């Protein structure tokens, strides 16, 4: 191996070690919401809710390039849905059978994740957007509605480091998703129940 190859190898190794990696461990508090009793909701989480990993290989920003959401999104949806529906049933995402005791099926999936670094937005903030699509089916697996739930978070880099600011912005965006999901359930759940009644 000549000196040029050695230098190239060293550069590759150094670049690998420079890649920033962030693990998100957001936990949302117990929501302060009214329970919806006597209603059986089953939820099927898509893979990108259960363990989403973002990788931006073309990023020129200093922000990052690998973000592991671990089970943050799953915990968020669980916490919000269980607080409304005490008898929430979780089904595996390859489930195709229809359960007789289920009134509604919900299938949330991550539709989009975007962020802007301070270099890109020309200010001192990280801004994060999340968008989820939730397909809602009746007990015969007929599609009733699609809900689009978004979340936004921003954090200035002021007293935080780069990865800490981005982590905090994602944390706020996930919490904001929980807010919007709770508002959507409060505002629109009755409409869904009416749709089921009409269906019968």
């Amino acid at each position, binding site marked *: 191996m000549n000196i040029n190859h050695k230098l190239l190898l060293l550069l590759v190794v150094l670049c690998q070690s420079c890649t920033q990696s962030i693990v998100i461990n957001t936990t949302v508090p117990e929501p302060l919401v*009214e329970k919806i009793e006597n209603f059986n909701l089953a939820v099927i989480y898509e893979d990108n809710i259960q363990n989403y990993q973002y990788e931006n290989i073309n990023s020129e920003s200093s922000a990052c390039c690998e973000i592991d959401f671990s089970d943050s999104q799953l915990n968020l949806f669980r916490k919000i849905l269980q607080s409304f529906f005490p008898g929430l049933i979780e089904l595996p995402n390859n489930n195709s059978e229809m359960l007789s005791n289920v009134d509604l099926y919900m299938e949330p999936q991550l539709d989009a994740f975007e962020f802007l670094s301070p270099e890109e937005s020309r200010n001192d903030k990280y801004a994060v957007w999340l968008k989820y699509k939730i397909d809602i089916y009746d007990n015969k697996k007929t599609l009733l509605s699609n809900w689009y739930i978004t979340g936004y978070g921003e954090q*200035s880099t002021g*007293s935080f480091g780069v990865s800490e600011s981005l982590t905090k912005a994602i944390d706020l965006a996930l919490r904001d998703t929980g807010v919007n999901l709770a508002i959507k359930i409060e505002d629109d759940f009755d409409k869904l129940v009416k749709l089921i009644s009409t269906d019968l």
Partner: protein
Amino acid sequence: MAGCTTTRLEEQTNLPFEILEGESVVITSNSYHVGNETETDFLQCINKSLIKKQKTFNVIPTQQFINQLYPWFEPRTAPQTTDDLSSFLARDLVRERIETLDVKYFVNISGQTKTNSSSGALTCAAGPGGGGCFGLAWWDDTSSYSASIWDLSQESSVGNVSASVSGTSVIPALVIPIPILARTQKTACEELTDQILDFFSRN
């Protein structure tokens, strides 16, 4: 070493109010959704300073209160003006939680620290025989903050206090740089805390 600062304080009382021993207050700030730029560390400073400087009333740490009220005190859902208080308190669960925590007042903080101007030049260099800096740099900071005291029972603002601190920081360097910093934000935090305590002590 600290640079010189100039402080300007103002106070305004709108309505009669009282705070009793054991009652609680929460430090709040407007959301980034409405363009608020108040720094998180300034809010933490006010929280810590208010807890340290008095024992009459309780100060519930902001994040702890936000978590207790999730999802109704997040940037999207928290009241941004006193006009929003009635709809915020209209939720039974929110009102019950606030009563349980015995929260009587929100102290809503706004403002930020800005660098107005900077000048001078500072150059540093290092070589095999050593290194050093040479030059002079300075800048002016203004930390301007106000606190509006929201009475939850009256659903209105009972008064406002404000503190504006300006100062010039200088770094002269002759081999070794010697920073002489005007800690305007820290001074504003201390002054605003004293103003808030003074306001509550006059009920």
